[in-house]
C-alpha cells in the first residue's frame, strides 16, 4: 500500500471566517456598528444591554445566544429592544455562536433604521473567543465578582477583544479583589486592549461606554 501526502495548509475555520467577513462588510455597508459581547455566565451582559437600550432604544437590535431559554431575550424585549433568540440546543448544544448562526439570524430579521447590532454571545469565556462572528468590535465583559485571575486563565477572550468592560464595580466594597490588579492582568494578556470600569446598576462608566458606541470604536 503506497501512501501519498498532500499539502493542505488551510485554516481550519476558514469557512466560518469567510462568512464572518461577509457579515462584517454587509453591516458596514448598511452603516450598522456591530458589537460582539463575550463573557462568563452572569457577568452582566444582559443588564448592560438593558441600560444601553435606555439610550439607544429602537436604534439597536440584539441577537441573543443561549444554549437554552429565552429569558434574556424577554428582558431585552421588555426594554423595548428588537431581539432575535438563538438557542443552540438543550443538551449538548454548542457553547458558542458561529458566523453561520448569525448569518441565518440576519436573514430572519429586519435591520431597517438600526444603527447598532449586538450579539450577546453564549456565557462562556473559552469557546466564543475562537469563532469570528463578523463583528466590528469584540467586547469582553469581566465582572469584579469573578476575581482577579480570569484574564490569565482564559487569555484568548481577552486577546481577541479590543475592549474590556470591567462590570459590577458597585460591588467592589464587598469583595476582596483589587480592580487595579484585575486591570494589570488584562493588560498582561492584551497590552493594546481598552479597559473601562462600569456599573450598569449605578450608571458609573455608562457615559464612557456610550461614547465608545457613538464613536464606533473600530479596530
Amino acid at each position, binding site marked *: *500500500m*503506497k*501512501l*501519498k*501526502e*498532500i*499539502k*493542505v*495548509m*488551510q*485554516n*481550519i*475555520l*476558514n*469557512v*466560518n471566517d469567510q462568512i464572518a467577513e461577509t457579515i462584517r462588510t454587509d453591516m458596514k455597508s448598511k452603516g450598522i456598528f456591530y458589537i460582539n459581547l463575550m463573557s462568563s455566565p452572569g457577568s452582566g451582559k444582559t443588564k448592560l444591554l438593558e441600560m444601553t437600550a435606555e439610550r439607544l432604544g429602537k436604534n439597536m437590535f440584539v441577537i441573543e445566544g443561549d444554549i437554552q431559554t429565552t429569558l434574556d431575550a424577554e428582558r431585552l424585549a421588555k426594554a423595548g429592544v428588537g431581539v432575535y433568540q438563538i438557542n443552540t440546543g438543550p443538551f449538548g448544544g*454548542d*457553547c*458558542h455562536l*458561529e458566523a453561520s448562526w448569525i448569518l441565518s439570524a440576519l436573514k430572519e430579521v429586519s435591520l431597517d433604521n438600526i444603527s447598532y447590532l449586538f450579539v450577546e454571545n453564549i456565557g462562556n469565556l*473559552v*469557546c466564543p473567543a*475562537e*469563532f469570528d462572528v463578523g463583528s466590528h468590535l469584540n467586547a469582553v465583559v469581566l465582572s469584579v465578582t469573578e476575581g482577579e485571575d480570569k*484574564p*490569565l486563565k*482564559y*487569555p*484568548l477572550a481577552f*486577546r481577541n477583544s479590543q475592549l474590556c468592560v470591567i462590570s459590577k464595580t458597585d460591588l467592589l466594597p464587598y469583595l476582596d479583589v483589587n480592580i487595579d490588579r484585575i486591570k494589570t492582568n488584562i*493588560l*498582561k*494578556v*492584551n*497590552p*493594546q486592549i481598552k479597559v473601562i470600569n462600569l456599573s450598569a446598576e449605578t450608571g458609573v462608566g455608562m457615559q464612557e461606554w456610550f461614547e465608545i458606541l457613538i464613536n464606533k470604536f473600530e479596530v
Partner: protein
Amino acid sequence: MHEGAIAQSLLNLANLNFHRSGLKKITRVKVVIGKLHNVIDEVLVMHFDLLKRDMNGFREAILEIEKKEVVIKCMQCGVEKTLNEVDFTCSSCESTSTEVTSGNELHIECIEGTED
C-alpha cells in the same frame, strides 16, 4: 468545549481536499494548533474519531496534532520569548508593543492517503 466544532470544521475541510485529491482513502490528517487556542488534544481526537465514522474514506484516518508554543516578538527591542506564563509584555524592555509570532496557528498541514 469548542473541540467538537473544530473537529467538524477540520473534517469538512479535509473531506473537500480528499475529493479533489484522487486518493481512495485517508490514513492521516495532520493539523497544527497553537497553544493560544486552548484545544485539549484528547478531546479533539475523541470528536474526530466519532465524526469520522460517518465519513466515507476517513474511517481509518488518524489525527496527528502538532502543538506550537506561544512566542512573542518585541516591536521595540526585537527580543523574542516563549511564553511560559500569560504575559504579553516584553520581558526585556517592558514594552507593550509585541506581536505573536507563534501560538495562534489553527490549520491543516496535510492529508495522507492511498491511491489504490
